[in-house]
């Protein structure tokens, strides 16, 4: 006889069958039947957050670090609306996530019932897809579809809204979890068009000033090995977006650093001057392109992306290739190996000479002998203390950019940040999600005194679930990123970018049962970090008093092009004529 289960039990059983380790959630009326089913088992562990936004960020970061979808469970009404910021965060960065939301019982939907909101309607624009379950016999299949849609093609969050009557413990139906589902309306493309790939390879091999511009798609598509192989085989320079960092090892000489608004001088100049760009799993975001009409004026562009809608959305490309990065790069590698002609060596030598000139201005240099703690210095020291092997999560602001610039990521999935939505409050719950996935690895959250306060309550979750993460608070007593824009564009009118009262984070950490440290001098930075990481089983809040006036450089201001960067120090070499 077939197993008969209630809706609540079906949900939990589906999660087990999917191999889900953790559900991040918060209970409430409409999900009580589900919570009762959770109570009766211990295979799927429930992580009780302190705010539903954090549930989504923790699950999202778990997914970013592991490649497996994150799972969230929230109640109807305020539970669901609190989750929206995190759902949108995952959506913008194409992160696979399953959100299970309770809904009022089917018969009262539409009657403004207690804690009723139109969750499917509210989330529609920020999910890959969503479902409202209308029949308990369809529940298992719907969950399977949700996982399938979230994790294939261009990944993204999928929400399943479940009215309370669907999980009624008194209504049991036969349970069957389908091994596979197919949907006639959803068939993501996997392999690329051979003819297009051939065309791309021809253009690539004829290039004189080539550059590889890779993004988050390489990490999402697990194609870092192929990317490394291709880059090294060609000997071409490579730059990565904020979301792509770690796919290609940063310490490698072919890597020019990040590109875009706060990218390096050499990466942006090389983009601007290039004649061929190979864009791999990157989406020509406005933080990357700068002024579109001045973007890469000399380049033929090849673009590999699984989502046809990413191609020629903002920048018209010459050779579109729709497909998953991994198989497409494999095909490319094969064709290049078999190609009759090889990269243009003399042209490449010239190109690298130019690039190395740009590099020589050392655009990320900063004042190293300051007697105030420089935020960059903290990140550099963190890199050394952790041997470059930590998982780094971040919030949003200047500290995020310093993390990206000075922690030289050499493996994929180690850099966990909100790029597309830029969600302050992401860092701490993200660190908790990562630490649960990798309890034996170092996990640090680089944050700012403004961002950390947006999900500070998660210090309580960190204690309950024993996730000893290190919080690196680059405390500049400003919303530094906002202050920087106000300095540059509003004649230093610092409107509301400063808070009069900032909590004593050491005491706050202690109040939550953790260790707090305040570091005021550069010479104490290294020791504090070492001490903190030596405390393997404690969450440590390191409150670094950093330079209040420090800015992130280089910077491409609004409406400017890649070759119009604002630098900390203007170069004195002959190529400075190219700067505005």
């Amino acid at each position: 006889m077939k197993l008969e289960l209630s809706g609540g039990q079906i949900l939990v059983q589906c999660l087990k069958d999917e191999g889900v380790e953790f559900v991040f959630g918060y209970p409430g009326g409409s999900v009580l039947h589900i919570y009762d089913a959770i109570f009766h088992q211990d295979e799927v562990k429930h992580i009780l957050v302190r705010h539903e936004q954090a549930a989504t960020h923790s699950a999202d970061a778990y997914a970013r670090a592991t490649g497996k979808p994150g799972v969230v469970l929230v109640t109807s009404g305020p539970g669901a609306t609190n989750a929206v910021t995190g759902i949108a965060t995952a959506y913008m960065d194409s992160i696979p996530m399953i959100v299970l939301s309770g809904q009022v019982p089917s018969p009262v939907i539409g009657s403004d019932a207690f804690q009723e909101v139109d969750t499917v309607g509210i989330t529609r624009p920020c999910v890959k897809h969503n479902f409202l379950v209308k029949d308990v016999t369809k529940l298992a299949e719907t969950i399977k579809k949700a996982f399938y849609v979230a994790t294939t093609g261009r990944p993204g969050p999928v929400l399943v809204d479940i009215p309370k009557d669907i999980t009624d413990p008194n209504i049991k139906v036969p349970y069957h979890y389908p091994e596979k589902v197919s949907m006639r309306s959803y068939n993501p493309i996997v392999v690329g068009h051979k003819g297009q790939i051939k065309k791309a390879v021809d253009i690539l091999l004829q290039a004189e000033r080539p550059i590889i511009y890779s993004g988050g798609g390489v990490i999402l598509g697990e194609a870092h090995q192929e990317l490394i192989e291709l880059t090294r085989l060609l000997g071409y320079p490579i730059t990565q977006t904020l979301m792509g960092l770690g796919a290609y090892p940063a310490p490698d000489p072919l890597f020019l650093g990040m590109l875009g608004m706060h990218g390096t001088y050499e990466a942006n100049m090389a983009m601007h001057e290039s004649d061929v760009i190979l864009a791999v799993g990157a989406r020509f975001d406005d933080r990357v392109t700068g002024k579109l009409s001045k973007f890469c004026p000399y380049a033929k562009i090849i673009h590999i992306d699984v989502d046809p809608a990413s191609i020629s959305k903002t920048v018209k490309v010459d050779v579109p290739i729709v497909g998953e990065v991994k198989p497409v790069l494999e095909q490319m590698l094969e064709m290049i190996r078999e190609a009759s002609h090889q990269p243009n060596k003399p042209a490449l030598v010239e190109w690298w000479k130019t690039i190395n000139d740009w590099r020589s201005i050392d655009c990320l240099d900063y004042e190293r002998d300051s007697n105030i703690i420089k935020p960059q210095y903290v990140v550099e020291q963190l890199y050394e203390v952790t041997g470059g092997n930590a998982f780094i999560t971040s919030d949003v602001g200047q500290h995020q950019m310093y993390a990206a610039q000075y922690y030289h990521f050499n493996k994929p999935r180690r850099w966990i940040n909100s790029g597309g939505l830029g969600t302050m409050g992401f860092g701490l719950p993200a660190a908790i999600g990562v630490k649960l996935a990798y309890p034996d690895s170092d996990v640090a959250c680089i944050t700012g005194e403004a961002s950390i306060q947006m999900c500070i309550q998660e210090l309580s979750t960190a204690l309950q679930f024993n996730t000893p993460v290190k919080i690196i608070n680059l405390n500049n007593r400003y919303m530094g990123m906002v202050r920087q824009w106000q300095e540059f564009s509003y004649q230093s009118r610092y409107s509301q970018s400063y808070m009069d009262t900032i909590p004593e984070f050491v005491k706050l950490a202690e109040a939550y049962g953790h260790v707090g440290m305040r570091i005021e001098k550069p010479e104490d930075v290294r020791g504090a970090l070492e001490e903190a990481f030596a405390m393997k089983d404690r969450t440590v809040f390191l409150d670094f008093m950093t330079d209040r006036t420090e800015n992130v450089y280089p910077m491409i201001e609004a409406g400017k092009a890649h070759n119009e960067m604002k630098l900390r120090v203007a170069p004195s070499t002959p190529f400075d004529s190219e700067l505005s």
Partner: protein
Amino acid sequence: MRHIISILIENESGALSRVAGLFSARGYNIESLTVAPTEDSSLSRMTLVTSGNDEIIEQITKQLNKLIDVVKLIDLAESAYIERELMLVKIKTTHETREEVKRMVDIFRGKIIDVTPNSYVIEMTGQSNKLDAFVHGFDAESIIEVVRSGPTGISRGEKGLHL
């Protein structure tokens, strides 16, 4: 340029709002939208009239295709097609104008489907510009009501939009 996009979409609740929401969220222009179930009751067919330059139309079709519920679509304007719109018009009539109105209806191959001493309801199908021309043939005071379905369309030849 004006484009007519025909869409086969899963006949699910919410499918229509996904399409409508896409257009408002991305700021695409939507001139008309018609939708009805097909002979296969699990599918609906939508006809959507929009306009924009080639890049915008390319993005619109890509974004529509990306909607999980969309099974298939074609941009009818890419090859030869036929388009028709249904219009119902209620017109004031007097003893003197009745004959004239009827003649107009005949010229435009419409039908009078309701008659009162003071009004006609006229049914007419055709391309949208023909319907425009008919309406413009009357002065504003004599028109009581105009209801238009928005265009639907089908491609010429043997090929069809189906699964």
